[in-house]
């Protein structure tokens, strides 16, 4: 198979330390269609790592594979010293991974408080409700509202807020800025920066690399279900031309 | 989500499916035609033919339209009562009796169809079941059905004034002719443009709607055709059983129709015929075992759903990659 230069080297770590998540030769399928063709990447404790790539490149599928909610997957997924490549998604969550899905996944039949309280605590040390309201003051006002009656931005905040309660220290955020107004995007950027400062490890999927640039330590570029490039935030300027080609912007 | 019929064969097969079906049809006709000369109890085969036609009619709806009717006994029973009443009380000739009974099923299927197709899927099944239960209670109280006793001792008469239906062999060929007529109507329907639209609705109703098909009209038409032919089977059965009773309108009969089709193969052309004979034979052999028949039917339901969803004919067709 004629491949373009497949750069599988992990980019230089922004912070030293062992890999919290390491993915080796991950393949995944949606029914009959083969989406991931051997993903290799890792995320170290305390990092914010962003997966960049065009629509349909396999970024969301990667997150879903790590979370264990994809039809079929093979390869090795190691998290915090445990192989989770065959575990059911509730067991994976209990290991301390929290997932914020692309469509936000706010439940219409639950009010805001119920949405917020839904994910069970998997580890001690999650944010308290007070800390969450400090991050997202809007939510306090809307506790009694039906989850899906919130604005898009508020729903996104709720979707992030509810996984901060759980004590999971590794967050996977799928396109948290999609379809949101610039001022809200900024607020989400601040939140991610704040979480990073508090020691959360974050794996981010973004189309909007201008946003990603404000928060990420490292980038991986995904194309056709493979990692084709990777670099640190400091190398972003130098890689701009390449990135434009990859993303077709 | 997989649809309830898994027997649609992948399109590009080397042999044309129609040829396979024609061969199978010819074989079936020959076998059925020589039955009276083999010493097999003709009453059993005639009963089987009536149920086979009934199951085929039911299969038209579920196998090609994706609509599970859990009340098809109402057409069987209604046509049976009307035909029986027409023969016994009105002294109509057999052919007119069949006509009147079938027409009654037609009328009933128009009314119930208009009501039932207003909901889909699981609700459709519950509604048809409830409608048939409504009819059951009506027949339980209506004087002309004679309640628990049913209509007994129905004269078979002479068809068109010459064909003596009291002769078992003659009756057999009349029933066989009726079965083949119904079977061919169904076969023609599923291979017509109408049948294609029906399959399209089963696979993806929103898409069929967006292509401009008035899917409700197609579903209603399928329901009417199915109900009418089920009624035709019920009218024929009157001559075989010489009675019409509440058994034929009871929900357990509707369940048996579902079971026959499931065993034979939902969405196969010949499956319902095979399934009907299998279930009828089983009932015949186990007649002395009381309610164990019910238990075994339940076990077959469970086993079919869990491990044998293609049914007998569906499995055979799948194995040989043929459409049967």
């Amino acid at each position: 198979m004629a491949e373009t230069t497949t750069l599988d080297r992990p980019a230089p770590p922004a912070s030293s330390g062992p890999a919290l998540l390491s993915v080796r030769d991950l393949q995944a399928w949606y029914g009959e269609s083969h989406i991931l063709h051997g993903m290799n990447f890792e995320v170290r404790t305390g990092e914010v790592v962003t997966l960049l790539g065009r629509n349909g490149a396999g970024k969301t599928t990667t997150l879903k594979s790590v979370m264990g909610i994809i039809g079929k997957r093979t390869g090795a997924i190691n998290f915090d010293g445990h192989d989770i490549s065959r575990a059911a998604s509730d067991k994976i969550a209990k290991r301390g991974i929290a997932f914020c899905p692309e469509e936000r996944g706010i439940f219409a039949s639950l009010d805001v408080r119920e949405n917020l309280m839904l994910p069970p605590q998997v580890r001690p040390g999650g944010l308290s409700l007070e800390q969450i309201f400090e991050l997202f003051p809007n939510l306090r006002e809307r506790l009694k509202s039906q989850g899906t009656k919130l604005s898009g931005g508020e729903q996104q905040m709720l979707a992030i807020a509810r996984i901060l309660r759980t004590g999971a220290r590794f967050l996977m955020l799928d396109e948290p800025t999609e379809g949101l107004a610039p001022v809200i995007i900024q607020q989400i950027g601040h939140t991610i920066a704040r979480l990073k400062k508090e020691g959360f490890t974050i794996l981010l999927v973004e189309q909007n690399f201008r946003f990603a640039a404000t928060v990420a330590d490292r980038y991986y570029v995904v194309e056709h279900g493979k990692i084709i490039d990777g670099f640190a935030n400091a190398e972003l300027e130098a890689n701009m031309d390449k990135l434009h080609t990859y993303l077709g912007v | 989500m997989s649809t309830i019929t898994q027997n649609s064969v992948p399109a590009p097969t080397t042999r044309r499916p129609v040829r396979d079906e024609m061969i199978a049809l010819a074989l079936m006709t020959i076998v059925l035609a020589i039955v009276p000369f083999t010493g097999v109890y003709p009453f059993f085969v005639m009963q089987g033919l009536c149920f086979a036609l009934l199951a085929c009619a039911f299969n038209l709806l579920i196998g090609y339209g994706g609509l599970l009717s859990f009340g098809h006994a109402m057409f069987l029973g209604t046509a049976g009562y009307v035909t029986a009443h027409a023969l016994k009380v009105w002294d109509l000739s057999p052919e007119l009796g069949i006509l009147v009974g079938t027409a009654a099923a037609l009328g009933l299927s128009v009314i119930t169809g208009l009501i039932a197709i207003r909901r889909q899927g699981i609700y459709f099944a519950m509604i048809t079941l409830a409608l048939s239960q409504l009819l059951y209670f009506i027949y339980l109280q209506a004087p002309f059905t004679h309640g628990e006793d049913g209509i007994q001792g129905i004269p078979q008469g002479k068809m068109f004034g010459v064909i003596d239906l009291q002769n078992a062999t003659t009756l057999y060929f009349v029933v066989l002719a009726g079965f083949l007529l119904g079977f061919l109507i169904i076969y023609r329907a599923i291979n017509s443009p109408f049948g294609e639209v029906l399959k399209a609705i089963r696979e993806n109703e929103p898409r069929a709607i967006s292509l401009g098909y008035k899917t409700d009209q197609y579903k209603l038409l399928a329901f009417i055709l199915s109900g009418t032919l089920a009624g035709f089977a019920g009218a024929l059965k009157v001559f075989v059983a010489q009675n019409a009773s509440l058994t034929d309108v009871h929900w357990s009969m509707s369940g048996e129709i579902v079971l026959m089709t499931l065993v034979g193969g939902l969405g196969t052309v010949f499956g319902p015929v095979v399934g009907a004979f299998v279930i009828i034979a089983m009932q015949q052999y186990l007649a002395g075992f009381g309610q164990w028949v019910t238990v075994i039917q339940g076990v077959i339901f469970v086993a079919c759903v869990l491990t044998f969803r293609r049914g007998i004919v569906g499995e055979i067709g799948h194995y040989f990659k043929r459409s049967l």
Partner: protein
Amino acid sequence: MSINIQALLAQLLVGLINGSFYALLSLGLAVIFGMLNIINFAHGALYMMGAFCAYFLLNLFGIGYWWALILAPLIVGAFGMLMERTLLQWLSGLDHLYGLLLTFGVALIIQGLFQNYFGSSGLPYAIPDELKGGMNLGFMFLPIYRGWVVAFSLVICLLTWYLIERTRLGANLRAATENPTLVRAFGINVPRMITLTYGLGVGLAALAGVLSAPINQVRPLMGADLIIVVFAVVVIGGMGSIMGSIITGFTLGVIEGLTKYFYPEASNTVVFVLMVLVLLVKPSGLTGRAS
């Protein structure tokens, strides 16, 4: 037309009792459908098992009505959970209709087995001493047991509503009904929740069975026709709302009771006729969302 108040109220009470059973059963069907996407055709058979369970507890172990009220739903609920683990869980991803066919088969097996051993006639189950007799309310004579069935069913229905709509556990259940994959990815054991939900629905059916034992006797086919009426109730009410199921169940029971007084010939069919009318006027059901 002169109205015999005594007789009317008596029929109304019978209607309320039937309404209690409709409510308890349709509530269970709705909860099960929400989580498992299965219409539980075996619900009537499990209701019957609840009544038989009470009968066995009394006649084999000398355990009376009050304990049966707790034990029978637990035992039959456990049986239901076993059924879910061994049979129903294999249906996920298949067309809804397979669930109906499978549970219909299970109903045939259960009812057939009971008929083999107990025939079709009814076995008596006595009203517990504490609930015997009646009260003169001035305008009518109220048999205490009948009043108890209505009141207790109502309490259980409202408790179930509270559990699902107002508690943390209920929030998990509602969320899992909406998006089981995501709920599981939050660390909630959804398969266990599905099993427990089925157990809850089945337990409610069994409870209705125990309540009905002293009134309707204990018969193998006591649930067979009832489940079809309950299906009609579900079609009328829709399965989208818990409170909707409760209200529809009681209301239809009352209407049926009134029909028994004013036009007894139609009392068997009135629920089905109402179903037809509702389908003609509002096809999605009174409280249901369009399917």
